[in-house]
């Protein structure tokens, strides 16, 4: 019995010595990676300060815990304030999920990025999605080569009659207004003719798809889903609905910057709750967000 114990103890001892050595030699490298990840995450979360600087602030809460946040500025000489960035952490299903979040001066979330998680596959491991800087329009153009894109412009009316996605897709396009009017007027066949032009595609590329308006309408819906999945995190909507009543998300302009993806209920609730908690402390730390009426 003693021999068994001794052998096992010896093996464990040798193994931990080896591990300690490996840990010592890799830890600087890992810390460096983490620093870069965090730095990039801050710039993602607060897009206005993407090219600016961040100033680290340490706040000692009443309870004695310290809380770190960053003030983000648009410029290097820290005169133009953009917002705050801080890190939220919460216990998920199988790991601690860390979220870097950006908050503007009014207390609205401008963006998030999950920087650490080890959730179980199928139960939230996809809670973060690779960030894409592609706009919907870029995605459309990229897909154009496949011949399945141009019907996009028609997906402006969903089955409940709501006009959506038009602005996002055609924001900078010269024909945007014209198409908008046509949609409002219900003249779908004219939209079908105009859409390829607005997207900068030759009509030859798109005629096949546009041959029948109902078909074009139908296909468009699916394609838009695909494009949305590429251009914005695919669970954004779920996150917003789960966060309702507590968090304000500055959605309009920064859809593509919000990085919280929620795969499973436990993981997404963790993110939501930890973000809410961090917001409360942050509000206390910065002495309250300015109330501004839009």
């Amino acid at each position, binding site marked *: 019995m003693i021999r068994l114990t001794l052998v096992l103890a010896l093996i464990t001892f040798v193994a931990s010595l*080896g*591990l300690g050595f490996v840990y010592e030699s890799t830890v600087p490298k890992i810390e460096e990676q983490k620093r870069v990840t965090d730095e990039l995450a801050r710039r993602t979360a607060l897009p206005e300060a993407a090219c600016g600087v961040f100033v680290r602030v340490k706040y000692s809460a009443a309870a004695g815990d310290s809380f770190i946040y960053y003030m983000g500025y648009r410029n290097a000489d820290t005169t133009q304030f953009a917002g705050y960035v801080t890190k939220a952490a919460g216990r998920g299903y199988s790991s601690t999920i860390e979220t870097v979040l950006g908050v503007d001066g009014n207390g609205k979330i401008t963006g998030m990025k999950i920087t650490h998680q080890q959730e179980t596959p199928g139960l939230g491991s996809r809670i973060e999605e690779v960030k894409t800087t592609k706009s919907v329009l870029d995605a459309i153009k990229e897909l154009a080569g*496949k011949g399945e894109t141009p019907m996009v412009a028609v997906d402006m009316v969903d089955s409940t009659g709501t006009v959506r996605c038009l602005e996002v897709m055609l924001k900078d396009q010269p024909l945007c207004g014209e198409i908008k009017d046509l949609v409002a007027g219900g003249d779908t066949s004219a939209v079908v003719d105009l859409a390829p032009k607005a997207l900068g595609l030759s009509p030859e590329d798109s005629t096949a798809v546009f041959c029948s308006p109902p078909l074009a309408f139908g296909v468009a819906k699916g394609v838009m889903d695909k494009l949305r999945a590429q251009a914005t995190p695919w669970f954004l909507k779920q996150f917003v609905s789960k966060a309702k009543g507590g968090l304000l998300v500055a959605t309009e302009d920064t859809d593509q910057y919000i990085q919280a993806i929620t795969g499973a209920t436990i993981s997404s609730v963790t993110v939501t709750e930890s973000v809410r908690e961090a917001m409360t402390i942050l509000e206390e730390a910065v002495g309250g967000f300015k109330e501004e009426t839009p």
Partner: protein
Amino acid sequence: MSVSLTREFTKGFIRENPVFRIVLGLCPVLAVTTSLKNGIGMGFAATFVLVGSNVIVSLVRKGIPARIRIPCYIVVIASFVTVVDLVMAGYTPELHKSLGIFIPLIVVNCIILGRAEAFASKNTVGRSFIDGIGMGLGFTFALAITAAVREIIGTGKIWDLVLLGTRYNPVLIAVLAPGAFITLGLLIGLFNLLERKEG
């Protein structure tokens, strides 16, 4: 001990391929073979652990009482996995991130414990080393084939290289979970067929 070292090395590829013939370690095979990069990364990580644990287990095989051999093997294997985990986190962060939870899970990969128990504990260090490399590369080979098939069919690309052009409509299911099962099943069938042909 009449088996030659070369044969000990090559058996892992086809004849005793851990995935296609012995059907072990299927969890990573199914989960990480969505791209060739992930598959090969996982394969090499497992190979490193396999070679390391085989050598150590073989070295200490005479000193370990039979009753506690399994806990001892697990300590050795877990140590090597932690080494791989730390090194990958430091030097290949992208790969580390995309393999995620499956790196720590190498600990419970039955190929590694299987080789320790069935081979390294009964053979010399040299043979165990060769066996580890052969089996590890056989595992990598299996992962690479499965991953390559899935990536080409499912995305039309391989290792960031566009293979099938923009006119190809990728069979999305190949990179989803059902595609892993279908691909693996068909590949195992193919290997059975190859073996039957050989006699």
